[in-house]
């Protein structure tokens, strides 16, 4: 989680935003959920679950040309313990499905999953005995990104959608302070 923002600085906003600092003083009122979600959405730590060619585009998104750090999510972590967003980039075989699910279980709450590309979303062109037909069969997916593979712009777009989704989540503190893994139910 990123550092706590200095809320006093935000009181410098002029009154054309409907906020009068002379009346309110240097105080800003908001919901705790909104602050927590705002912080979370700008410090997503992705877990690159690179399984196929989508992972190459994922690496491109992490490079300087596309610069995923503009959105505060450049800290790719290769340990599930240190990450909160699993980007499933590539074909999930049935043999690998077990590993994907275990790594998802090892991630601490709150956590999100992005299915990057056709294979992770639906099985893609791999309609075969060996391929899981969509990673949403084994983990709950927040964002699906189309493409085969998606360009880095599409990944960034998906990650911005994820930020939007995080900002709209309710009960953030409850989820955090419960101190145990929230049961994830898969709707099929």
């Amino acid at each position, binding site marked *: 989680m990123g550092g706590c923002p200095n809320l006093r600085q935000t009181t410098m906003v002029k009154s054309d935003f409907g906020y009068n600092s002379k009346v309110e003083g240097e105080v800003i009122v908001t919901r705790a959920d909104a602050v927590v979600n705002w912080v979370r959405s700008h410090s997503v730590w992705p877990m690159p679950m690179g399984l196929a060619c989508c992972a190459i585009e994922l690496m491109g998104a992490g490079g300087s040309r596309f610069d995923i750090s503009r959105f505060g999510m450049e800290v790719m972590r290769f340990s599930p313990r240190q990450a909160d967003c699993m980007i499933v980039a590539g074909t999930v075989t049935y043999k690998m*499905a077990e590993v994907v*699910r275990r790594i998802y279980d090892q991630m601490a709450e709150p956590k999100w999953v992005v299915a990057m590309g056709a294979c992770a979303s639906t*099985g893609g062109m791999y309609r*075969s*005995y060996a391929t899981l*037909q969509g990673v949403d069969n084994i983990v709950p997916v927040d964002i699906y990104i189309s493409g085969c593979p998606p360009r880095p712009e599409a990944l960034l777009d998906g990650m911005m959608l994820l930020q939007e989704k995080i900002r709209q989540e309710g009960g953030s503190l409850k989820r955090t302070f419960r101190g145990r893994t929230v049961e994830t139910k898969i709707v099929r």
Partner: protein
Amino acid sequence: MEAAVLTDRFPRTQVLASQDMPTYQVAGEDLVETVRFLRDAQGFDLLADLCGIDWKDRTPRFGVVIHLLSTTHKEYVRLHVGAVNDAVPSVSSLHPGANWHEREAFDMFGIRFEGHPDPRRILMWDAYPYHPLRKEFPLAGIEVPLPAADVAEVTGQTVEPAPMMGGPFVSPGGKMSEGEPSALDQSWNEEKPKA
């Protein structure tokens, strides 16, 4: 290499018709000695490929094809071996590169390689009950439990047949050959939803 070099030394060896490289039908009993002879005396020092074949109607049904390359003479040679009782001698003691190829042929066709140091599956998981490249196996797959019981319990997921309609392995307007029926499994598709 003249064909007589091989057929004189191993009388059970037959010359097969081939368009690209010398091809021989080798008896299973002669396989290891043939490969050793080709490697040590004829310079075929590189195992380029080893794969299985399902002949479907022939006896023996399964076979193994070995491609050898001579890096000194710039020549290829191809060896066919029939899998009597689904078994073929392993050549991984002569060419270590054959190790994983033989495991793959076992995984996909169920051909046993006698003398293999590590005869496990290599692509599918160990408990998988089928050999997917056999002719009778549907491309979509057959439903079996997930390899991990605890994951299957949490997710309710099984290894289930994939939808074939509109996929890249199905010819539009009917199948193009008898070799294609394995792609026609449509246990669930756009018209017939998953149960």
